[in-house]
């Protein structure tokens, strides 16, 4: 009786596992990132290329509300992505923001300043949804930090791996998969049906530093930029951590010596 129950239980477990496997997405492949590991920093070239991809491709639908233009420059957290103050001012000035009211009580438009947050392509979420078949392209400020699973969370790279996998994971839908209208098939997206059309392809941007703009390179660059955008203080954190831990090691060593000396009389 007991064995029967056990067999039944095993069978159930195997069956359930098989069922789950059929519906699940393949595990996200790991990429090499300049920012992984305790000493990893952001590759400045990749950051600037990634920002270009964001500006020219992603920004048409996705906002990046938590960043200011000044964050990109030398006064930004962690020294920005390597832009100069003038570059940042010029970049901001391309956008118009609503300010006011002025002393006539009226709102007015003015060019954006470095202290302004990134101006989204749509005035509000409803307008964004209306332009995208009801689907809302999510804000990308924290997209890398808010995704990912498994051991990669421990190392802080699983979000980057995931976003990269989505950007490069577009395939033709299998014959038995009835794709709803306006949806696209993505290998790594939960349920495989994603509203976002494939955003990247070869040469969708022109890199000024001579890097070949393959779809993979673009995805790699923009994910590097978005990882920076999700936590611009990351390099600062790792640098500070090294100093703190060296200090603590020395302090703990001294405390251990003190403990040995004081306790020598007791044992």
């Amino acid at each position, binding site marked *: 009786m007991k064995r029967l129950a056990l067999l039944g239980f095993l069978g159930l477990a195997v069956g359930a596992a098989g069922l789950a496997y059929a519906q699940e997405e393949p595990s996200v492949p790991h990429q090499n990132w300049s920012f992984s590991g305790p000493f990893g920093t952001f590759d400045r070239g990749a950051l600037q290329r990634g920002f270009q991809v964001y500006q020219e491709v992603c920004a048409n639908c996705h906002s990046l509300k938590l960043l200011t233009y000044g*964050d990109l420059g030398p006064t930004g957290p962690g020294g920005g992505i390597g832009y100069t103050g003038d570059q940042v001012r010029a970049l901001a000035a391309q956008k118009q923001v609503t300010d006011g009211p002025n002393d006539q009580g009226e709102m007015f438009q003015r060019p954006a300043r470095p202290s302004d947050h990134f101006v989204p392509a749509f005035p509000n979420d409803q307008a964004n949804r209306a332009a995208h078949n009801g689907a809302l392209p999510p804000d990308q400020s*924290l997209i890398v930090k*808010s995704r990912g699973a498994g051991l990669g969370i421990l190392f802080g790279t699983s979000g980057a791996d995931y976003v990269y996998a989505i950007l490069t994971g577009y395939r033709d839908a299998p014959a038995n998969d009835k794709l709803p209208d306006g949806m696209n098939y993505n290998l790594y997206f939960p349920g495989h049906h994603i509203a976002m059309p494939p955003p990247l392809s070869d040469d969708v941007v022109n890199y000024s530093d001579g890097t070949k703009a393959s779809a993979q390179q673009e995805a790699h660059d923009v994910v590097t930029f978005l990882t920076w955008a999700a936590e611009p203080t990351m390099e600062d954190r*790792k640098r500070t*951590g090294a100093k703190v831990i060296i200090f*603590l090691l020395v302090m*703990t060593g001294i405390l251990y010596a003190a*403990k040995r000396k004081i306790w020598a009389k*007791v044992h």
Partner: protein
Amino acid sequence: MAAPQAQNKIVRWIDRRLPIFSYLHHELYEYPTPKNLSYWWNFGSLAGLMLIIMIATGIFLAMEYTPNVNLAFDSVERIMRDVNYGWLVRYIHMNGASFFFIVTYIHIFRGLYYGSYKEPRELLWMLGVVILLCMMATAFMGYVLPWGQMSFWGATVITNLFSAIPLVGNAIVTWLWGGFAVDNPTLNRFYALHYLFPFLILGVVMLHVLALHTHGSNNPLGIDRKGPQDSIPFHPYYTVKDMFGVGVFLIIFAVFVFYFPNALGDPANYTRANPLQTPPEIVPEWYFLPFYAMLRSVPDILFIKAKLAGVIAMFSSIFVLFVLPWLDTSPVRSSRFRPVYKWVFWLLVLDVLVLGYVGAHRPEGWYVITGRIATFYYFLHFLILLPLIGIFERPLPLPTSISAAVTKGGGQLAGATVPREKP
């Protein structure tokens, strides 16, 4: 006064009117501590350190945080990005919660292993359980404040538990929320209470320490101190040992704060709370997983619905600790001399780990049955096994004194008869 006359005139003047110096002298230099405490006894002071760290970082975070459903998430991100060293303060506070629970859980299991809850330390133990309950409430409310997806949905699930109470349940939930859903009033009151509770904990910790200093620490042998040869003054021996422990602990803590700051959290909490979109999986922070597993494991029992039964099981799992000193019928404290209980203790540790594992997964398939068995075993341990083992177990002979056991050769043993410390 027992304190030697201080050289400094000002100190003498103050001490005659407000004897804080005599008090400190009494509680540090004269306070006798067993000489054989192991490093497992470091975790009490580490928990105290974590409480101070959490209060200190929390106060600085409160200066920058905005408790409003439209602003909370952005204000936390502002701390992370624009406030000088805001990321550091926030990561310390965030990971500090996890590490506070790690050291507290180790502290509790140490008490379980060495019988630190037994006569005359029952109230000391019960005050500790009060601290644990307050910590859980504080951690839960603190997790709601960043107003991410898990904050919101975690708050919704946990506050909804009270709706399981018959008749008045729904009214209580509405009262807790300050409305008909988790919303701005909920966030505001959670913020106020999250600021209040640590100071309640601080008060109970003082009582905890007062009760501790009445009879002094238990020790790995679990026998009472018999005389001055068994004890050493707390200072400098245990101050320096605690400080060394603090150093080791801070290194591990720093590795997480600086290199794996998000490893212990849920990525979903970096998505702004959205009341219209339920996340695919609602999981509490890791330190609540064993309790969450109990909540979800219990089925309908007779006329009690599964939801209510789960809530009762979850709260009972803590409340059973209050009566633990009377459930354990063995007069011997330390597991070293309890051949049966020693194994049962490790089974309980394993059981809680299994519950934690189950709590992290959807209650489907074998997780359901495993969760039920583990929940059942948890209560079996406290309600059935402990009383019975105390009666039927034959403890090993206890050493005559602490110093006899620590000095070479193990000292003299009390002989073959089972020593009883209380009649």
